[in-house]
């Protein structure tokens, strides 16, 4: 079984600041949800159910650092679609469809969303474009019937939902699926010898342009400091007259 794991390079969420139009940070990391997807693919391979894990990302050469991190975790090889533009989910999904058609994986596992824009759309659009079944917000994956089907647990607002779907399929990962491993030192050394294939959109046969444009990103307004009241009466008066909530 071959697994394709699309991942995105995002500003380090532990070190991000907002400035102008987008979040920025002194360094970038693999989107944490995508890291969970990579980890899951590795575990599937470790239990003997997958033979190859291919990573794919879109970006300028600067994202090679995150590609190497994915290879160091254990991804076998990686593809970078060389495109430095800020793409929207539809454009990303169209590029990924072209990669899926080129690589023909049995399953695509990816984060449910990227932590920089929180769009939560790429997996779903990709499934739609391919006409593949999808399981989103997944917290467990199990393969059935000689790996022709997958049983996934989905985390929904109402509780846990268990679904079965035919492969090939798109699976998007939620936080509780696993805890990604640390890149080991031997992993880092091995990653240097693994191939990174760089392709342009032209080479994979897609011509995309973003349909949406981000105009501005702003911090939420600062919460004003609270005050301490002396008595219940004073609290009620303030709630009535200042906050006007009762």
């Amino acid at each position, binding site marked *: 079984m071959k697994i394709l794991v699309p991942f995105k390079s995002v500003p380090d969420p532990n070190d991000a600041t907002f400035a102008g139009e987008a979040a920025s940070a002194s360094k970038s990391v693999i989107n944490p949800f995508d890291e969970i997807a990579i980890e899951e693919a590795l575990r599937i391979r470790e239990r003997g159910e997958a033979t190859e894990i291919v990573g794919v990302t879109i970006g300028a050469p600067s994202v090679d650092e995150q590609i*190497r991190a994915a290879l*160091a975790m254990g991804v076998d090889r990686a593809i970078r679609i060389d495109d430095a533009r800020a793409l929207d989910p539809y454009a990303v999904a169209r590029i990924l469809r072209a990669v899926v058609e080129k690589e023909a994986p049995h399953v695509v596992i990816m984060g449910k969303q990227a932590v920089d824009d929180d769009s939560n759309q790429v997996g779903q659009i990709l499934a739609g474009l391919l006409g593949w079944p999808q399981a989103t917000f997944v917290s467990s994956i199990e393969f059935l019937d000689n790996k022709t089907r997958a049983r996934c647990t989905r985390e929904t607002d109402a509780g846990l939902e268990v679904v079965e779907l035919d492969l090939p399929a798109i699976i998007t990962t939620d936080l509780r699926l696993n805890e990604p*491993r*640390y*890149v*080991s*030192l*031997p*992993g*880092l*050394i091995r990653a*240097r010898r693994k191939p990174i294939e760089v392709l342009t959109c032209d080479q994979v046969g897609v011509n995309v342009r973003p349909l949406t444009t981000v105009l501005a990103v702003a911090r939420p307004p600062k919460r004003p400091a609270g005050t301490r009241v002396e008595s219940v009466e004073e609290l009620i008066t303030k709630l009535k007259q200042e906050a006007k909530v009762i």
Partner: protein
Amino acid sequence: MDFAWSDQQRELLNAVGRFASQQLNYDVIENDREGIFNHEAWKKCGDFGIQGLLVPTDYGGLGTTVAALERLGYACRDNGLLFSINAHMWTAIIPLVYNGSEAQKKKYLPGLCNGTLIGGNAMSEPNSGSDAFSLTTTAIKKGSRYILNGSKIFVTNGPIADLLVVFATVDKTRGTDGISAFLVEKNSPGMNVARKLEKMGLRTSPMAEVFFENCEVPEENLLGKEGGGAFLFTRSMTWERGCILASAVGSMQRLLETCIRYANERKQGGQSIGKYQLVASKIVDMKVRVESSRHMLYYYGWLSGHRKSVYLEAAMTKLHIADCWVKCSEDAIQIHGGYGYMTEYEVERELRDAIASKLYSGTSEIQRNIVASMLGL
């Protein structure tokens, strides 16, 4: 010589720093108080590749290895854990790498590198410390076995070790030429890991007294040649001397940064205490000690990596870094004032941990003896 890091080396060092700062610093104060070894952190280090740093050696040479250990010392505040790792690497892994048979390497090295096995050595005895080769533990060949008798003290990792490299003499009349090394597994009949030793510092690194009473060791567990123990020990010690305080350089760097931060934040008499020359001067001394230590360490790494003789340099490096580490720790407490003496600030522990560096792997006096002898004195 060029001490600038390549992108690949920097990537590796950053990975070590990230791993250590996020994975190894929990329960350090409690573990130090109770004298608890952090088994989980040991395993994490194994999975990550710390214990395996020497095997294989394609990380970019020994220079990278000592720098990785330095970074580990900077990011991990559990000096005891690092001491246990050091003992394991220099006194168990190194002798196996150099002197182990293929069968011995195959049997023990993977586990020693991936964190499932803990190693150490047993050399010092109640009556032979600095004069290590005057040991009296005996190993008498009987058929296909050696029978070990004697007692060993200050055995780092003793209470937790799966494998000890034990030094004993096969024939006292042969003196140094009779000393041999044996791989002794835990629970070997006749080996008794006696009382755990309470210590001033490095309390998270367990140490014990170990007795051998007709302890039977199969002959295939002889490490190296019969009578080759002294040479094996000397080589292992040269590695240990040169590298064991790499993590101390990282610790000093961390202490320095802690002190700079504190000196800028703490205000007395209307200004940051760092503005007082007496405080600033201490911090400058710390900086000079860190840099001089680092340069000696890297120079040792460079020499060793180029297969040059390091007998003298290893002794000087060890001597200098140990002195610097103790002085830096003492200064750090003084800069922090009363707070520095409080456990929760994690500065006082550093001094307790640092003092041992003037004793283990040959006392500072022994290092001076080595240097003196190399100077023709």
